[in-house]
C-alpha cells in the first residue's frame, strides 16, 4: 500500500482550524435540540407514514374498502361479478361495449330500426359492400363484429390491405360523397 503523503498534515491542520472556528461559533450560540423538534422539516409527516408498517397497512385496508364500496355502488350488488367471464367483465367496463347491451335491449329486431342518419347509413353501407366485393368475400351486414375472432379479423384486414381494398374504399367513399 502506498504510504500516505506527509503533506496530509497540512490538510489536517486546515481541518483543525475550520473545526476550531466552527466550535467557537457553536459555543457563542444556544444549542437547543427542542427547537429543532418544534421546527421539524415538512417531510416529517411523510416519513412517519412510510416508516410505520401499521399505518401503511391501515391505509391499504382503507383503500381496499373504498374500492369495494365504489364497486358495490356502481354495480348495485355483487351478483354480476363472479358470473361474468373475465374478458366480458373487462369489456363491459368500457363505455361503448357496456352501453351496447342497453342499446340491444331497446332494439326490437334487426332491420326494423329507422336509421337516424339515412344518408350516412347508405354511404357507409355502400362503402362496405364495395370493399367486400373488392376483397372477394360476400358482404354480411349482420356479422357480429364485436364477437368475431380477433385473429380472423386481423387476417381479413391484412388481406384487404394487400389487395388495396381500403384505398379503393376511400376513393369510392370520396366519389359517393361528391355525388351526394
Amino acid at each position: 500500500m502506498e504510504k500516505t503523503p506527509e503533506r496530509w498534515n497540512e490538510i489536517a491542520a486546515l481541518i483543525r482550524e475550520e473545526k476550531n472556528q466552527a466550535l467557537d461559533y457553536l459555543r457563542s450560540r444556544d444549542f437547543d435540540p427542542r427547537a429543532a423538534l418544534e421546527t421539524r422539516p415538512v417531510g416529517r409527516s411523510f416519513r412517519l407514514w412510510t416508516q410505520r408498517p401499521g399505518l401503511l397497512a391501515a391505509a391499504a385496508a382503507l383503500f381496499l374498502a373504498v374500492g369495494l364500496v365504489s364497486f358495490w355502488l356502481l354495480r348495485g350488488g355483487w351478483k354480476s361479478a363472479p358470473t361474468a367471464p373475465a374478458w366480458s367483465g373487462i369489456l363491459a367496463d368500457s363505455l361503448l361495449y357496456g352501453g351496447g347491451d342497453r342499446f340491444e335491449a331497446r332494439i326490437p329486431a334487426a332491420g326494423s330500426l329507422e336509421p337516424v342518419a339515412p344518408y350516412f347509413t347508405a354511404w357507409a353501407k355502400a362503402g362496405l359492400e364495395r370493399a367486400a366485393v373488392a376483397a372477394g368475400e360476400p358482404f354480411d351486414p349482420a356479422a357480429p363484429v364485436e364477437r368475431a375472432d380477433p385473429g380472423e379479423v386481423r387476417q381479413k384486414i391484412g388481406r384487404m390491405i394487400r389487395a388495396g381494398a381500403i384505398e379503393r374504399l376511400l376513393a369510392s367513399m370520396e366519389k359517393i360523397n361528391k355525388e351526394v
Partner: protein
Amino acid sequence: MGDPVPVREEAQVRLDLLALKDKVFCFCLGFVGNAADARDLAQETFAKALAHCGESRPENPQAWIMRIARNTCLDMARRRKSRGPHYPVSEYAAGDGETPELHAGREEEIRIVRKAIDRLPRRLRDVLVLREYAELSYQEIAQTLRIGSGTVMSRLHRARRTVLRFYREEHHGKNT
C-alpha cells in the same frame, strides 16, 4: 419493543449523548461545510436521539448517534440536491495578528479541502469525516459504520490520497 428503560438509566443515556455534542457537531460540519447548517443538523440529530433513546436503548450511544447524524446529513444533502448546489459560506473574521490577506488565503485553502471532501464517494467521505472531524478511532468508526477495521483503514487511506491529489492539482492549477 422491550421493557421500558428505568428513568435513571434513560437519564444517564441522555447525559452520555449530550456529552457527544461537539463530536456530532464536527461530524455535521464535515458533511455540510458551514457552521450554521452543522448546528441545525446537530440539533436535529439530538432532537431525534433524545426522543428515541428510551425505546431504542442503544448499547453504544456514540455509534448510535453518529448513525443518526449521518442519516440526518444525508437527508439534508438530498433536499439540497433538489434545491441546487450548495456553496459553504464563511462566517469567520480574521483572528488576532492575522492580516485580511492571510485570513483570505487560509479561507481559500479550507475551501479547497472542503471541495475535495465533497467530491469524495460517500463511503470514503463517511470514514474521512468520522476520523478527521469527529476524531473517532478506527475501532469506533468500524462500529459506527458496521464495517471491519481493515476496511476503515483502507478507505481512510484512499480518501486521504484522493483529497491530497485534488488539493495539489488545485494548487498546481493556480500556480501555473
